[in-house]
C-alpha cells in the first residue's frame, strides 16, 4: 500500500464523497481544529482505504455527487437516492438527450414534461416516428390542461402564410425549401422569384390577411412558367411534387391556415410519423423558424422560459441541421438564438452519428444514456467534459433509466450520474381519443384551397372528340406531329409501325411517343401481326374512322391554304 499523507487521503475522500457520514464529518472537523488524534485519523484513513479498494474494483462511480439542492424541477436522483434539483430557467439553453433504443429517452422527457406542464405557456412535443407522447393525454386531462394530439392528416399549415413580416417570411420559406429539398442554386433562385411573384399577385406584401398562396400555387407557377432553365425547373417540380404528394392537400392546401405563433400558447403533440422524411423536416423547420422569428420580431429577448419544443428520435432532423442554403442561419445557430426568446429546444437522438458538430454547443444541457458504440460515448462524453475513466464507467454501467448529465448553467458543471424514476402512464389512448383532442383547434379560422383537393403532380389532359361545324375542328386537339404521323399511317396502311417514322420524317423515339399519344386519344388501334417468319410480331396500326375524317379535313384545309 503506497504511503499517503493524511491531507491527500482527505482530498481523495472529499473528491469521491466517502466522508459524508456523520462520524467522518466529525473527524474532519476535529482535523480542521487541529485536534485530530490517531484514532480519528484511523477513521478517516480507513474510509479512504476502503474507497481506494472499491475504486480499483470499479464499485465506486468516478463522479462527484452534485450539490444541487435548490430548484424548480427535479432532474432526477443522484446515486444516493437524493433529488437533483435544477432551475427551470436553466433549460432555456436547450437540452440534448443521447441514448439508444430502450435507453429511457422518452421516459426522461415525460418525467420533465410532467413537471413543466403547469409552468409553461406552451409545450410542443414532436414525435417524428413513434406515437409515444400521446400517452400523456390522460395526465393532461386529470390536470385540466388542454393537450392537442395532432396526427398527420389533422394538421393545417400553409408554409407560404407569413407569420409576421412577409419579406422575412418569404426568405424563411425559400431557405427551408432549399435546405430540405436540397435545391441547386439556380432552382433556388427560381423558387425565390416565384414566391415573390405569388406574394405580389396575392397582395401579401400589401397586407392581405386571409388569402395566401399555397405550395401548390408555387408548383403550378413553376410548371407553367415559360423560358426557365429546364434542369432547374425539373429539379423543382420533381422534388416539390414529391413533397406535396407526401404532405397531401388536406395538410398543405389552406388559403388561411393555423399560425405557428398562435399555437405556441398551447400544449401540442405533433405526430409526424405518417409523412416522408422531407415533409417531416419541412414542417418541423417551418414551425421552428416561424416561432423563433415571430418571437424575435415581438422583441422578446432574455425572457424567462415559457415555451419548449421537443423532438423525439430527431436523428435525421438534426443530421441535416448544418446545411446553410440562403440568407438565414442554419438550424445549429437557430438553436442558440432560441434561448433568448424564452424558448427551449430539446432534442433526443439514438446515436451521435451524423449529428452536427455545431448543434451540440447550442443544446447546452446534455444527458447521456446507454449508447450503442464506442464512438458515440467518446463523442458525447468529450462534449460533456467527461474523463476517460468516467466514459469507461458509463460504457459499463449505464442502463435504462440511468444517465450521465452535464448542465449548462448553475453552480455544478461537472458531469454526474442521474437516475430517473420509472413512470407508468395510463395507456389505452385510442385514435378516437386523439381525434377528440384535436377538436380544440377547430375554432381557429381556416380557409381551404379546395381547388387543389384532387391535385396530382402527373399531367392529365382530357381529350374530347368534337364534331359538327366547330371552326377549330377535331384536329385542334392534335398537334402537328400527330397529324403528320396519322396522315402517313392512312396513306401507307398496314406497314410496320417503325416505317412511319421515316415517312413522317421524325425520329423513331418521337414517332413512338406520338403513336402512343394517338392511341390514347383513340385515333389509332394497335395490332400484333407475325409479318415475318420469325422474331417478334410486327405492330400494325389501324386508323379509326375519326382519324380518317380528321386527316381529310386537315389535308383539305392545308391544301386550301397552299392554294390561296
Amino acid at each position, binding site marked *: 500500500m503506497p504511503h499517503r499523507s493524511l491531507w491527500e487521503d482527505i482530498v481523495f475522500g472529499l473528491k469521491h464523497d466517502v466522508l459524508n457520514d456523520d462520524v467522518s464529518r466529525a473527524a474532519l472537523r476535529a482535523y480542521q481544529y487541529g485536534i485530530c488524534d490517531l484514532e480519528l485519523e484511523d477513521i478517516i484513513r480507513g474510509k479512504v482505504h476502503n474507497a481506494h479498494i472499491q475504486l480499483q474494483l470499479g464499485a465506486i462511480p468516478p463522479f462527484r455527487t452534485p450539490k444541487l439542492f435548490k430548484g424548480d424541477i427535479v432532474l432526477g436522483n443522484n446515486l444516493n437516492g437524493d433529488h437533483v434539483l435544477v432551475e427551470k430557467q436553466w433549460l432555456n439553453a436547450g437540452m440534448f438527450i443521447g441514448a439508444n433504443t430502450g435507453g429511457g429517452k422518452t421516459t426522461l422527457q415525460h418525467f420533465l414534461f410532467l413537471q413543466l406542464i403547469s409552468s409553461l405557456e406552451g409545450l410542443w412535443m414532436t414525435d417524428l416516428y413513434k406515437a409515444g407522447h400521446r400517452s400523456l393525454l390522460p395526465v393532461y386531462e386529470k390536470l385540466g390542461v388542454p393537450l392537442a394530439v395532432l396526427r398527420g392528416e389533422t394538421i393545417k399549415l400553409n408554409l407560404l402564410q407569413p407569420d409576421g413580416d412577409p419579406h422575412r417570411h418569404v426568405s424563411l420559406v425559400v431557405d427551408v425549401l432549399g435546405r430540405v429539398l436540397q435545391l441547386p442554386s439556380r432552382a433556388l433562385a427560381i423558387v425565390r422569384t416565384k414566391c415573390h411573384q405569388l406574394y405580389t399577385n396575392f397582395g401579401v406584401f400589401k397586407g392581405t390577411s386571409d388569402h395566401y398562396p399555397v405550395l401548390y400555387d408555387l408548383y403550378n407557377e413553376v410548371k407553367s412558367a415559360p423560358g426557365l432553365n429546364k434542369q432547374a425547373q425539373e429539379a423543382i417540380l420533381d422534388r416539390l411534387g414529391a413533397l406535396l404528394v407526401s404532405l397531401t392537400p388536406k395538410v398543405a392546401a389552406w388559403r388561411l391556415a393555423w399560425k405557428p405563433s398562435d399555437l405556441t400558447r398551447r400544449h401540442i403533440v405533433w405526430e409526424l410519423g405518417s409523412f416522408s422524411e422531407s415533409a417531416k423536416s419541412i414542417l418541423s423547420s417551418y414551425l421552428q423558424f416561424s416561432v423563433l422569428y415571430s418571437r424575435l420580431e415581438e422583441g422578446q429577448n432574455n425572457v424567462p422560459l415559457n415555451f419548449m419544443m421537443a423532438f423525439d428520435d430527431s436523428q435525421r432532423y438534426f443530421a441535416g441541421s448544418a446545411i446553410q442554403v440562403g440568407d438565414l442561419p442554419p438550424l445549429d445557430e437557430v438553436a442558440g438564438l432560441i434561448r433568448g426568446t424564452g424558448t427551449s429546444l430539446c432534442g433526443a437522438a439514438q446515436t451521435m452519428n451524423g449529428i452536427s458538430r455545431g448543434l451540440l454547443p447550442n443544446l447546452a444541457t446534455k444527458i447521456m444514456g446507454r449508447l450503442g458504440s464506442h464512438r458515440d460515448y467518446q463523442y458525447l462524453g468529450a462534449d460533456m467534459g467527461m474523463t476517460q475513466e468516467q466514459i469507461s464507467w458509463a460504457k459499463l454501467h449505464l442502463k435504462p433509466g440511468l444517465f450521465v448529465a452535464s448542465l449548462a448553467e448553475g453552480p455544478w458543471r461537472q458531469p454526474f450520474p442521474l437516475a430517473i424514476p420509472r413512470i407508468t402512464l395510463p395507456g389505452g389512448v385510442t385514435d378516437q381519443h386523439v381525434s377528440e383532442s384535436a377538436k380544440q383547434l377547430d375554432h381557429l379560422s381556416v380557409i381551404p384551397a379546395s381547388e387543389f383537393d384532387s391535385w396530382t403532380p402527373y399531367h392529365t389532359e382530357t381529350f374530347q372528340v368534337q364534331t359538327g361545324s366547330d371552326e377549330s375542328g377535331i384536329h385542334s386537339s392534335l398537334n402537328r406531329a400527330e397529324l403528320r404521323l396519322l396522315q402517313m399511317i392512312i396513306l401507307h396502311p398496314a406497314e410496320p409501325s417503325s416505317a412511319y417514322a421515316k415517312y413522317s420524317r421524325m425520329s423513331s423515339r418521337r414517332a413512338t411517343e406520338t403513336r402512343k399519344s394517338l392511341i390514347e386519344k383513340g385515333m389509332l388501334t394497335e395490332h400484333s401481326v407475325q409479318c415475318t*417468319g420469325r422474331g417478334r410480331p410486327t405492330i400494325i396500326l389501324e386508323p379509326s374512322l375519326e382519324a380518317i375524317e380528321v386527316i381529310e379535313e386537315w389535308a383539305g384545309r392545308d391544301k386550301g391554304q397552299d392554294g390561296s
Partner: protein
Amino acid sequence: VRGGFVHNRVLVDSIRKLAVAHGAAVSEEHRVSVGGKPGFVDLMIQIPSAVVVCEAELGPRRAVWDVAKASALDADLLLIVTPTRGVATRIQARLAESEIGNPELEIWVLPLGVARQRLHKLFSLISASIKSGKKKIQ
C-alpha cells in the same frame, strides 16, 4: 370486302400482292356453293398446276367452314393465314377436333410471315416469272 382492317388490309392484301407479283391469277371474294349454301372465299389463286384457296382468319370460329368451301372449289391447297402463331395453333386445334378430312386437300394454317415464305417457295417452283426478281414485295 368483308372483314376489318387487319383481315383485309394486312392479311388478304399481303397474300394477294404476293400472288399477283408471281403471275398467279387471283380472284377476290370468289363465290362458292357448299351443298347449296352460298359462300365466298377471300382469295382463289390459280397457278398452272394448282388451285390455292386463301382464307384470312382472326380466330378459329370459321375454320371448318373454310375447309368445306375449299373442298367445294376442288382446291389443291387451303391456306388459312392468321395474324399470330397463337391464332394459328387454335385453328389447328379446332380442325383436329372436327375430324374433317379431305385427302385431296392440303391444308396450311400459318401466320402471315411464314405463309408468305411458304407461298414464295411454292410459286418459285411453279412460276418462272420470279426467278430473276429480288424486288421487295410490298
